């Protein structure tokens, strides 16, 4: 009785029983079957390589860029929230002692913090959602993000005693201005690519 297909494959792959190997060696028909199975294996491995019809790198690159940006803004949002929280805390503690001028500064700064948070929210929702960026736009985005990072670092170094100072107000003004520019770049790019 000849070997089953499973046994023939086991002989081909070198993990058959002694009996099966012995049969295969003495039976020309089974020997030929094993050679045929080996030939099929070789032909499968020799099938020509295939190439995707479209170049998927541009969309892949855009997706990678978008992921990096989403991650960056998730982190930036967290850092800015910490800065804003510390600021609010200081106002709460010193609230009763404010001079008129301090109160004015606090009000203005609060408005800027809120504006800043809104702009960041927009960046998180719309920022770089898998769209292709030309080199110049990418440079602008990187520069703006770097400058925002510098402002954040400065805000992070402000101690509680200086929380409502003209310096801090100006830092928040700068932050809002940069975020606003960044949103414009993102929006323009989006509109441009969408056309």
């Amino acid at each position: 009785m000849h070997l089953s297909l499973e046994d023939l494959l086991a002989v081909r792959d070198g993990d058959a029983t002694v009996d099966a190997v012995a049969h295969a060696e003495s039976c020309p028909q089974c020997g030929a079957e094993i050679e045929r199975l080996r030939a099929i294996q070789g032909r499968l491995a020799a099938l020509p390589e295939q190439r995707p019809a479209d170049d998927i790198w541009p969309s892949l690159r855009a997706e990678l860029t978008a992921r990096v940006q989403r991650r960056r803004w998730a982190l930036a949002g967290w850092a800015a929230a910490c800065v804003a929280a510390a600021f609010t805390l200081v106002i709460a503690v010193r609230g009763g002692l404010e001079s008129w001028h301090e109160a004015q500064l606090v009000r203005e700064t609060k408005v800027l913090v809120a504006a800043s948070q809104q702009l960041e929210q927009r960046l998180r929702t719309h920022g770089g959602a898998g769209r292709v960026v030309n080199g110049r736009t990418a440079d602008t985005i990187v520069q703006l993000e770097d400058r925002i990072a510098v402002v954040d670092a400065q805000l992070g170094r402000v101690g509680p005693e200086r929380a409502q100072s003209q310096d801090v107000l100006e830092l928040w003004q700068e932050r809002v201005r940069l975020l606003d520019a960044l949103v414009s770049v993102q929006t323009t790019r989006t509109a441009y690519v969408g056309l």
Partner: protein
Amino acid sequence: MTLNLLEAATVLQAGEPTGVTTRATQMTTVDEVLVARAKAGNEAALEALFRHFEVPVYTLARRLTRTSHDAEDVLQETFLEVVRSIGRFRGDGSFEGWIRRVAASKALMKLRRQASRAPEEDLSEELADAVAAERAHGIAAIATAPERLDLQAALARLPDTARVVIWLHDVEGYSHDEIAAMAGKTASFSKSQLARAHARLREMLAPRLEGPCT
């Protein structure tokens, strides 16, 4: 039928095939420096890496999945996974082997998702093409086509599980034990699927080569 083999697809990433054969060794070795630069997020290095693996990974994906569209998805998903996990790649075992495992895993996950939605009997592209050719020109048109196209079309006609087993075992070099571990089944399940795949291939290939002329 259910594709139990595909349910444990992620396990595939745990082990490297031990009996790596022909195809798996054809990919040329990738520069360690390139990998290091890609790890650091260098865009040019990432593109170079993508170009290096684009065709082999697409080819593997094309063999395992049903359509060229599925294979492009798998290529994209594989590369995104590679970028996400490249920092955890330790450098023991080949980079190529790792990428192939990720690709096979992504392909199996796609098949599993499809199996839960669409019946496996769906015509694949090759089958559809072959059927169209048969209708247009009769069987002789296929018999005179290059033999390797016959084999490729026959492979595509196999049921998903049989196709995956024959490709992973006979070409990628996975052992029956490794395939069994992926499937949460026994090695004899993998052996019987391999035998089934070869039996089906023989049925599909033999009549065209030896069939009577009418």
